């Protein structure tokens, strides 16, 4: 099966943006070679223990998507700022607006100044086979580069899959670099519209220099036959802030991995997310937070709600280096099962080599509170509505932490819609 992917790499590579630069062609070839050597990760690979990637191996997702002429209105959140749309892995200028100097598609960024992103792409050779495939054949992505002390404002990005071609793949590679003191808010959503299955595979490489601050909200709402995999690598320098929220409602099988390296003191990393799974969905979140230097804080808050025969998983590892004293790393994973046939796995892991740290994790898996359900019923609330109100309360404390109102409202609405579709 690996061969079909390798053939596909060979076929698309010449047409990939920037392939005329030898360094980039080399990076891509090396990535292809690493993929060829390992093949897809199996269940024995601890980081892929809960993900369900069988479909990727069973029949290769290598078809070249042919996007229909019109994909309908795009569901932008009503918020000012740059808007970039990608359809089936290709930037679509006709669907984008208010492009800023800081945010452009990878294809354009390579044409303008390929050296500027060389370092980050060069350095992204680690990662699983999925990341290698991405590196070898990403067709486009977002490049966000914000110079020292500048504020890039809000950048909204939509990654849409047309679902018009069966077994199509879109590999998206984004490179984000905030120089010291720079600021940006990045709102991403991936979604699918058609009925055919596809694979959306996104890798983002983020570098936050001293004192930079990135707010990063993502919503994975791919179609219910899709495979959605994502990897975000973040390096966080001193005094920098990375604030990430991920809502995961879509895809037949989704896996989101976030790897953060805290490389300076007084940095602050906030990771949070909500997974809502139903039918036979498998939604998997994997985080790895590494504190190399002390006096920084990290906080992870994840919630999953699982119904029917769906499965969600959260594996969160916190690694604290020996010299990273006074690290404060907290992690909470709470899971709500709406059906006896649903499954939620949670695997917190602390690996700590410093002795003067504050690290804690809490994980729970439970059902709806029967007393609360009765209380609501005794006041006239129907069982369906009672369930909805309690599920919303369960995820609300995380979603309400999003301080951009239109984004928060959009995610609350998405939760509500998910619940209504359940009734």
């Amino acid at each position, binding site marked *: 099966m690996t061969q079909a992917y390798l053939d596909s790499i060979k076929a698309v590579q010449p047409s990939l943006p920037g392939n005329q630069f030898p360094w980039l062609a080399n990076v891509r070839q090396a990535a292809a070679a690493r993929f060829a050597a390992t093949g897809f990760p199996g269940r024995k690979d601890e980081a892929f223990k809960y993900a369900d990637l069988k479909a990727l191996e069973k029949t290769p997702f290598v078809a070249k998507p042919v996007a229909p002429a019109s994909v309908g209105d795009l569901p932008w959140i009503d918020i000012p700022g740059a808007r970039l749309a990608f359809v089936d892995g290709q930037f679509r200028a006709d669907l984008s607006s208010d492009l800023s100097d800081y945010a452009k598609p990878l294809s354009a960024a390579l044409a303008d100044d390929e050296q500027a992103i060389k370092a980050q792409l060069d350095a992204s050779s680690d990662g699983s086979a999925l990341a290698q495939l991405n590196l070898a054949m990403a067709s486009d992505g977002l490049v966000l580069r914000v110079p020292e002390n500048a504020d890039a404002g809000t950048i909204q990005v939509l990654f849409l899959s047309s679902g018009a071609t069966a077994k199509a793949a879109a590999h998206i590679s984004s490179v984000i670099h905030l120089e010291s003191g720079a600021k940006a808010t990045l709102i991403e959503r991936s979604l699918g519209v058609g009925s055919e299955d596809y694979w959306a595979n996104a890798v983002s490489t983020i570098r936050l220099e001293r004192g930079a601050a990135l707010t990063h909200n993502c919503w994975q709402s791919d179609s219910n036959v899709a495979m959605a995999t994502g990897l975000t690598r973040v390096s966080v320098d001193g005094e920098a802030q990375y604030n990430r929220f991920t809502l995961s409602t879509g895809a037949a099988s989704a896996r989101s991995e976030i790897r953060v390296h805290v490389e300076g003191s007084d940095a602050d990393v906030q990771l949070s997310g909500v997974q809502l799974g139903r039918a036979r969905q498998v939604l998997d979140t994997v985080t790895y937070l590494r504190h190399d230097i002390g006096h920084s804080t990290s906080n992870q808050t994840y919630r999953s709600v699982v119904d029917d025969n769906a499965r969600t998983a959260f594996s969160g590892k916190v690694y604290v280096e020996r010299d990273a004293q006074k690290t404060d790393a907290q992690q909470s994973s709470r899971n709500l099962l709406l059906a006896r046939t649903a499954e939620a796995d949670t695997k917190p892991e602390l690996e700590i080599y410093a002795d003067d740290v504050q690290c804690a994790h809490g994980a729970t898996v439970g059902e709806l*509170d*029967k*007393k*609360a359900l*009765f*209380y*609501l*019923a*005794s*006041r*006239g*609330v*129907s*069982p369906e*509505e*009672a369930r909805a*109100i*309690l599920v*919303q*309360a*369960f995820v*609300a*404390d995380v979603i309400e932490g999003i301080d951009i109102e239109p984004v928060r409202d959009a995610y609350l609405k998405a939760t509500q819609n998910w619940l209504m579709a359940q009734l």
Partner: protein
Amino acid sequence: MLKITDLHVSVEDKEILKGLSLDIPAGQVHAIMGPNGAGKSTLGYALSGRDGYEITAGSIELDGQDLLELEPHERAAEGLFLGLQYPVEIPGVSNMNFLRTAMNSIRKYKGEEDISAGDFLKLIRAKAKDLGMDAEMLKRSVNVGFSGGEKKRNEMVQMAVLDPRMMVLDETDSGLDIDALKVVSDGINAMRGADKATLLITHYQRLLDYVKPDVVHVLAGGTIVKSGGPELALALEKDGYAAIAA
């Protein structure tokens, strides 16, 4: 209004109520008193249809309608209200949201339009004020961090807003200081009316000084062992349950 006939209720296969009958006409307030564990709360839960309270025999009718046919939320929509002895805490759900959802659910059941946000706000603020509940508390999660007395007041605010016709109040007086007891009693009295009825479940006769019952019943051994006027409550207080129930 409420007619309970030969009611048998089992909890976890243990029979708690063993043939209880009670008839509360519209316009009246009845009180049920009885020792701890007599089955008073069980009666309240059975009336409201809580899971796990199995009716093995008997009937419950509200104005001629068979309540046993209805789900708990439908009974509430039909105008039955149970004030809980131990109100439940619901983190993350504000009192406002809780009550607006309840109110609109009941309206939907009756085929009515949702209440407008403005009208609802006016209504709930007015009722909270009547019952001495701080408006700020309406925004807080249902009963979370509330004292025992505040929880009971909150039950009364809910009752005032939902405006039921049959009110069953389970130990609403426990945990209240004397001032709160007066406020809550005023609230109960304000809800009395020719087309409404109230069943006060209480352990102490204290509440009955403020809310005058028409009839007092003594529950013991799973049935009503004695019924009488308000003077029965005073006798119970003086002589104890053992003497009366014997």
